[in-house]
């Protein structure tokens, strides 16, 4: 099918874009990479009256180091995240996970800001935003505010952005020292949305015990699911099989809430979560130990 007619605006500065958002608030949608929005428009699931295309706002496309953080412009293509050397050095979890997002042809166009604003529970980048404790900068014509990623997602395809706000920048802290990481998912075909996936991070103390852990899941609820209780089981522990198995069991049985879909039952998703959590925690623990040596 073909998209319904819409009014098209293509600002070439952020200021212009914000002005248009104020003018059309409520009727307008941002067009970023279009890799989620255009399919929805082709199917007429989405019929926005006005599109504001950010592809010519070059000031929103950057990857910049700032102290112990990396700041990324919302219009940065997913493909650039995958190949950025400062991200690979300081936030290797993101480099590893970026390769699971769709196919190279989609990553060449899709953006970091678009994926986070889209808040698809099956998407990788919202999971990464939680796992990495990202902060998100939202701006409208009258000002800007920073939102903690943990407060940003508000359910299926829903965020706390106001109708006239644009997500402009994402702040990603460096992964702390002695941190191991892993990203694992199972998809029917490489590049498809995954049936289940997990990002795992473990930070060890000087004695090699777990100081801090994170387990965040995709396709496991109505947004990215941060399994805090399960991760807490690991804290203060040496990461042996028994405690890893308890955390995996708790996360997969209690903390996630998958819905199932045409490709998978809920039970199978829970089973995958259990298996993936154990594998991911073992890999993360091993990488953290290697960084101690």
């Amino acid at each position, binding site marked *: 099918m*073909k998209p319904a007619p819409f*009014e098209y605006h293509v600002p070439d500065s952020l200021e212009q874009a914000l002005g248009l958002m104020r003018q059309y608030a409520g009727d307008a949608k941002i067009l970023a990479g279009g*890799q989620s929005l255009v399919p929805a428009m082709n199917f007429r699931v989405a019929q926005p009256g006005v599109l504001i295309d950010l592809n010519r706002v070059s000031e929103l496309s950057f990857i910049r180091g700032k102290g112990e953080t990396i700041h990324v412009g919302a219009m940065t293509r997913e493909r650039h995240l995958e190949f950025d050397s400062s991200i690979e050095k300081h936030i290797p979890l993101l480099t590893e996970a970026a390769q699971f997002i769709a196919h190279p042809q989609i990553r060449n166009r899709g953006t970091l800001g678009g994926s986070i604003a889209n808040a698809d529970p099956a998407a990788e980048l919202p999971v990464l935003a939680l796992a990495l404790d990202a902060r998100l900068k939202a701006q409208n014509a009258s000002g800007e505010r920073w939102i903690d990623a943990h407060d940003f997602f508000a359910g299926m395809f829903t965020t706390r952005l106001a109708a006239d706000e644009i997500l402009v920048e994402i702040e990603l802290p460096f992964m702390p020292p002695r941190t191991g990481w892993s990203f694992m998912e199972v998809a029917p075909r490489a*590049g498809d949305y995954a049936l289940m996936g997990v990002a795992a991070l473990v930070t060890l103390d000087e004695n090699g015990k777990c100081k801090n852990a994170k387990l965040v899941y995709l396709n496991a609820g109505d947004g990215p699911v941060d399994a805090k209780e399960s991760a807490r089981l690991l804290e203060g522990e040496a990461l042996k099989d028994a405690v890893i198995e308890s955390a995996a069991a708790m996360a997969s049985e209690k903390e996630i809430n998958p819905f199932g879909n045409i490709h998978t039952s809920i039970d199978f998703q829970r089973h995958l979560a259990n298996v993936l959590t154990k594998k991911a925690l073992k890999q993360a623990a091993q990488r953290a130990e290697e960084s101690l040596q």
Partner: protein
Amino acid sequence: MTQSFPVTITVNEKIYRREVEPRLLLSDFLRHELGLTGTHVGCEHGVCGACTILFDGESMRSCLIFAIQADGHNITTVEGLAKDKDNLHPVQQSFWEAHGLQCGFCTPGILMTLIPFLKQNPNPTEDEIRHALSGNLCRCTGYQHIVDAVKLASEKMKAVK
């Protein structure tokens, strides 16, 4: 009918000036406005890969870009690969020789995926080839001969250098 806007788009090194409605997809612009029907349309939601083209040299889905967004940009389609039918691009020649196609519906999208892939990775392993092809569906070949054709292409392209 909504309003149309003028665009200037370079396709296969030729400059085209046209008026387009904002909702016109780049895939339909190439096929219906320019008559370049080598770019195929399978699904119109980004899944099948048949419509893959190069946008400023990078492979992208032409069904997920509006033609108006290509204003001022450089597009390459499958028609841009060979000078004429006796001078095929090495990747096309390899598909011919290794039987990398049957009905040919998926072929243009696969070729346009492979051109930048082989540039970035001139010596791909079989795993890397299969991964690169994961965004293109083929209903005929079972992929084996496509993988063979990519291997042959990488050898041919090395020999040329």
